[in-house]
């Protein structure tokens, strides 16, 4: 029973760590792209909508909060 509990916790930690990485990378990328597009309008948004990265960051951020230790 104890072993099962530990396995579950380890799994939770893995998803939390993975979500933390995804959150950091997507949030920083989104921020950088927004700044670049603010300085040179159209540089990013003519080709790619950085809102998608913000959505990914939000979802991963929510997972981090839900799986909080």
């Amino acid at each position, binding site marked *: 029973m104890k072993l099962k509990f530990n396995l579950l916790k*380890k799994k939770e*930690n*893995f998803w939390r*760590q*993975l979500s933390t*990485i*995804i959150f950091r*990378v*997507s949030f*920083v*990328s989104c921020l*950088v*792209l927004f700044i670049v597009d603010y300085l*040179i*309008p*159209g*540089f*990013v*948004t*003519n*080709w*790619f909508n950085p809102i998608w990265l913000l959505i990914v960051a939000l979802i991963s951020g929510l997972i981090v909060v839900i799986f909080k230790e």
Partner: protein
Amino acid sequence: MQKPLLKIVTLILILSAIGLGIWLINKNFFQQLVIKSIPEKNQPMLSTLGPQDRVRIENDYQLILDSPVYFDLRTLPWFSRLRISLIYRPAGRELEGVGWQVGPGFQYQIKEPILSRSLADGWQEAIFDLDLTKVYQQKNVKRFLISTLAAEGQERGELKIQSLELTVER
């Protein structure tokens, strides 16, 4: 087991972000870029023709019913020349020219094509060459118009547009 996997995932994500940056730089520093108008579809770089009550879509062709009709181009500051290729067929309306906004409000300068030639089945091609540095812009949006004239003796007519292709050059 999980730590190396997380490291690999981190590496993949960081490389993807760098790849996205390189892809954007590559896309924006082309020597020239061709943008084609798609009926009823606002593209990030090129808007549809408007206002809507002056344009009708019929069998993938855009019909200009009244003059002028406008379109917006969102381009980057290092592109200085614009070539517009317009393939059209007059049906009660003639093409007068293409204009660009020179100041706030309704301030446009209209230019006749530098090259005009006849194609098969009554279609005609008009090519315009414009200096983008002289176009008034708000943020990165430059507005253009297509001016048409009703043919003599015809009150209601249309100008059928087969394709509107814009080439921006550095």
